[in-house]
C-alpha cells in the first residue's frame, strides 16, 4: 500500500497540533495557510489556558473544570467530548511546558496559575498576557523542526477555495489559490483537516484578525459539510473600540483583580481618578457578588449593554465603561499583564497603569462551526475533519475564557491521528484526474466571473454594510422582527454582490479578488447565523432574546444543524449529549 497523504488547512494552534501529530506518525503532511503560520490569529489570545492542576491547593479537579465548562456553556455542549478535553488539559500544559513555553513561574519554579471568568479556581496557566502567541510559537517551532526533517511541507500564502469531492461523496483533496500568482491548483490527499478559525469579519469589526472570515467553512458548507450552532457568537465584554479593529482587553485584567465600573451619576464629566469610591458603580460586583468581575463573558457583556443602553450610565453618555487596574501594584501589572497594557498604551496613548481603560463589548469568538462527530473531529463528509474554533464542539452556548486554547490543541491533537487512521484504511483507489480538473475549472470560472464583472458595486462597501447589520441585530440582543429584516438585507446584499466591479483586475497578488471571494462566502454564512438565531426562540448563553428570556430545554436543548440543500439553507435539530451532568438552571448571582 502506498503512503497516505494528509492535508491540514490553517496554521493556528489546532492546525499546527494536527500537523505535528500526523508528522509524528510518519505520514507526510501538507500544511496550507493564508499567512506564514507564525502570524496566525492564535497569537491574539492573551489571558491563558485552562487545566485543573490544582496547583494552588484549592481543591480544583477535572470534574470541576468539566462542570464549569458545561454550566458556562449553558448545557448546549455535548458532554462526553468536553469531559475528555478536561481530562487531557493537564497533559497538554505539560506538553507545552516541555516545548519550552515561557509560562509565568512560582518561586518554586512551577507554573503559576491565575483566575479567569466562570470559575472560582486558579486554573489558568499563562505567559504574561500573550499566552496565545507563546503557545503558537511553541507549536510553530515543532512544526518547523518536522519541516526541516522533511515530514511537513508548508504552503504559506495559499488560500483554500474548495474541497475536491468525488462522485461517491468522498473528499480527495483541496483546491487552493496562490495569493501571489493567483494560480488555482488542486492537491490530492487521503484526508483533509480544517483548522480555519473564527469568522469575525462577518461582523465587520471584531477582535479577530483579518484572515478570520469564515470563508473556508462557508465554502465547505456549500459543498455539503454541515454547520452547527451558527447562532452562538461570543461578544467579549472588554475591548478597545477602533475603526479598523476592536482590540481585545483580556479577561486576565479582571483575573488579576481589575474592576469594571461607571460613575453613579449619569453624564459625570469628572476625570475617572477624581471620582470618589462611593460615587462609582461596580455593577458586576453588586449584581453578581459571588463571581463579581469574573462572571462569564455573555453575562458581563449583557450587563455592560444594560448599563449603557438602559440605565444610560455609559462614561460621559458614551458606549463605554471603565476597566480599572490602577489599584494593582505596577510591578504585578508589568509582570503579569504587560502585553495588553502595552496595546492600550500604544493605540490609545493613555497609560492604563495610571488611568482606567475605556472599554466596550466586541464580537470575539465563534462557538458554532463545522459539524463534527462526538468522537474524532470527523465531519459528515468522509475524509474531511475539523478542529479548533472553526468547529462547534466543546463550548456550547458560551465559551469560558482560557478554554479555547485547550480546545484547539486537544481537537487538533485528536484530528491528526484520526485522519491518519482513516487514510490508512481508505480502500478505494485514487480519484480520477477528471474530478480534480472539474473542481479547478469551477474555481477558475468563479475568479474569471469576478474579474470580468462590470457592475457598479464595491466589495468593501458591501462588506461594511454586512458588518453593520450583523453587529446591530445578530450579536448581544436578538429580536425576531429585526432578525427577519437583517436576513432580508443580507439577501439584498447578496444580489448586489452579483454586480461587483473589482477595482483591481490584475492577476498578480490581487488582494481585491481574494477579498471578493471571501465576501461571497461570508454572505452565505451570515445567513446561517441569522436564521439560526431567528429560529431559536429561547435565551441560552450568548444567545439572548428579550421576547424569550428563559432557557427552554423542552424545545431547544438541541444542536442546530444547518445543511445546504439545493442552494438553500435548511435547519435541522439534534439531541445534545447530556449523559454526564443533568442540565440545571444557570445562575451566577449566587454560588452554583
Amino acid at each position, binding site marked *: 500500500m502506498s503512503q497516505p497523504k494528509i492535508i491540514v488547512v490553517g496554521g493556528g494552534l489546532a492546525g499546527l497540533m494536527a500537523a505535528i501529530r500526523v508528522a509524528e506518525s510518519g505520514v507526510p503532511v501538507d500544511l496550507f495557510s493564508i499567512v506564514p503560520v507564525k502570524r496566525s490569529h492564535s497569537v491574539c489570545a492573551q489571558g491563558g489556558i485552562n487545566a485543573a492542576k490544582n496547583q494552588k491547593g484549592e481543591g480544583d479537579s477535572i470534574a470541576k473544570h468539566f462542570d464549569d465548562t458545561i454550566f458556562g456553556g449553558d448545557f448546549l455542549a455535548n458532554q462526553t467530548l468536553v469531559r475528555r478535553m478536561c481530562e487531557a488539559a493537564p497533559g497538554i500544559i505539560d506538553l507545552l511546558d516541555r516545548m519550552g513555553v515561557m509560562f509565568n513561574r512560582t518561586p518554586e519554579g512551577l507554573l503559576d496559575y491565575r483566575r479567569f471568568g466562570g470559575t472560582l479556581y486558579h486554573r489558568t496557566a499563562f505567559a504574561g498576557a500573550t499566552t496565545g502567541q507563546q503557545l503558537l510559537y511553541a507549536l510553530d517551532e515543532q512544526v518547523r523542526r518536522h519541516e526541516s526533517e522533511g515530514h511537513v511541507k508548508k504552503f504559506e500564502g495559499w488560500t483554500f477555495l474548495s474541497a475536491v469531492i468525488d462522485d461517491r461523496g468522498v473528499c480527495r483533496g483541496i483546491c487552493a489559490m496562490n495569493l501571489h500568482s493567483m494560480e488555482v491548483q488542486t492537491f490530492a490527499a487521503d484526508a483533509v483537516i480544517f483548522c480555519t478559525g473564527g469568522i469575525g469579519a462577518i461582523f465587520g469589526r471584531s477582535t479577530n484578525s483579518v484572515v478570520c472570515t469564515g470563508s473556508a467553512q462557508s465554502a465547505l458548507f456549500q459543498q455539503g459539510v454541515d454547520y452547527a450552532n451558527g447562532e452562538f457568537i461570543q461578544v467579549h465584554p472588554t475591548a478597545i473600540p477602533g475603526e479598523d479593529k476592536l482590540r481585545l482587553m483580556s479577561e486576565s485584567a479582571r483575573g488579576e483583580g481589575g474592576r469594571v465600573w461607571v460613575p453613579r451619576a449619569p453624564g459625570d464629566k469628572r476625570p475617572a481618578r477624581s471620582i470618589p469610591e462611593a460615587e462609582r458603580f461596580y455593577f458586576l460586583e453588586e449584581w453578581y457578588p459571588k463571581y463579581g468581575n469574573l462572571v462569564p463573558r455573555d453575562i458581563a457583556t449583557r450587563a455592560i449593554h444594560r448599563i449603557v443602553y438602559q440605565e444610560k450610565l455609559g462614561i460621559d453618555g458614551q458606549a463605554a465603561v471603565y476597566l480599572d487596574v490602577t489599584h494593582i501594584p505596577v510591578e504585578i501589572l508589568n509582570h503579569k499583564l504587560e502585553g495588553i497594557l502595552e*496595546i492600550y498604551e500604544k493605540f490609545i496613548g493613555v497609560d492604563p497603569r495610571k488611568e482606567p481603560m475605556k472599554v466596550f463589548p466586541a464580537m470575539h469568538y465563534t462557538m458554532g462551526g463545522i459539524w463534527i462527530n462526538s468522537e474524532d473531529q470527523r465531519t459528515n463528509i468522509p475524509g474531511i475533519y475539523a478542529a479548533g474554533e472553526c468547529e462547534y464542539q466543546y463550548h456550547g452556548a458560551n465559551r469560558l475564557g482560557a478554554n479555547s486554547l485547550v480546545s484547539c490543541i486537544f481537537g487538533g491533537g485528536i484530528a491528526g491521528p484520526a485522519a491518519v487512521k482513516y487514510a490508512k484504511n481508505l480502500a478505494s483507489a485514487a480519484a480520477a484526474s477528471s474530478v480534480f480538473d472539474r473542481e479547478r475549472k469551477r474555481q477558475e470560472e468563479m475568479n474569471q466571473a469576478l474579474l470580468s464583472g462590470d457592475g457598479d458595486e464595491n466589495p468593501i462597501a458591501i462588506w461594511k454594510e454586512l458588518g453593520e447589520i450583523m453587529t446591530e441585530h445578530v450579536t448581544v440582543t436578538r429580536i425576531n422582527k429585526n432578525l427577519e429584516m437583517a436576513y432580508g438585507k443580507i439577501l439584498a446584499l447578496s444580489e448586489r454582490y452579483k454586480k461587483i466591479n473589482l477595482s483591481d483586475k490584475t492577476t498578480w497578488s490581487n488582494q481585491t479578488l481574494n477579498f471578493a471571494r471571501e465576501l461571497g462566502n461570508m454572505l452565505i454564512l451570515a445567513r446561517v447565523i441569522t436564521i439560526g438565531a431567528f429560529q431559536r426562540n429561547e435565551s441560552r448563553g450568548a444567545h439572548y432574546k428579550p421576547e424569550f428570556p428563559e432557557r427552554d430545554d423542552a424545545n431547544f436543548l438541541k444542536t442546530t444543524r444547518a445543511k445546504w440543500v439545493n442552494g438553500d439553507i435548511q435547519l435541522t435539530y439534534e439531541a445534545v449529549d447530556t449523559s454526564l451532568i443533568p442540565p440545571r438552571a444557570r445562575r451566577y448571582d449566587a454560588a452554583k
Partner: protein
Amino acid sequence: MTEAAAGKKVIVKVQRQAAPKEAARWEEFALNWRPSMNVIICLRDIAENPVTSDGKATTPITYDSNCLEEICGSCAMLINGKARMACSALVDSLEQPIRIAPLTKFPLVRDLSVDRQFMFESLKRVKAWIPIDGTYDLGEGPRMSPEVQEKGYPLSNCITCGNCLEVCPQVNEHSGFMGAAIFSQVRLFNMHPTGKMHAAERLRASMGHGGIEDCANAQNCVKACPKGIPLTESLAEVNRDAWKQALFGWLVG
C-alpha cells in the same frame, strides 16, 4: 469631530510596484481625517476608493496585515523612512505627507508586500526549537526559576517582523547575515533547561556564512524592535558563546 467635519485631509504617498520586475513609482492620496487613524486605516480607505489626489483611478494597495495589534508581525513597512508596524503607526503622530514604502531588505512581492521567508529559513538553520521526544504524555517539563522565565519571556516575544534586519547595515544580498532576531532566538533556546542540552549545535549553526561574526555592532536593531527586545544583549551573548564553543568546544566534547 469638528476637524473631520471641516474636511481636514491626510496626505499619504505610497510607493507602488506592480510586480518584482516592474518599475516603482509613487502615488499620492488625500484621505478624510478621522480621530485615531492609523496607517492601516489609510490603506483601507484607499482600497475602498482607489483614486489618487489628482483624481486618477488606480488599484488598491497590496500589503501584508493580520492581527492589527502588533503581535503577528505582518505589517512591517517603511513609514516616513522608518521601519515600523503600520497598525501601531498613528496618523496624528506622523509628519505629512506620510510616505509609505516597502521594506528594502526582502524580495518585493507587490506594492508594500515583501517576502520574509529568509527569516523562517534562518530559524530552521539555527534549530530554534526544543527537540522534544514526542507529544505523548511524558509528564511535566523541567522546573524553571522565575529569573530565567523573566529573561526568556521578552526574547520569546519576537514577532519576526524583520525590522531589525531592515535597519542593519550588515544585512544585504551578499552577506547572508541572518540578523539580530535569529540570534536572539538562539539565546532563548540556549537558556532553556532542555534547550541548553543542544546549545553547541545551535552555536555552530550560528557561525559561518551569514553568521554572528558578521555583526558589526551598529546597534540599530535594538532601536527598531517594536517589542523592545534586548537584541544587542542577545548578539553579545551569542557571539561570546559561539566563539567560546569554536575555540574551546573540543575540550568539553
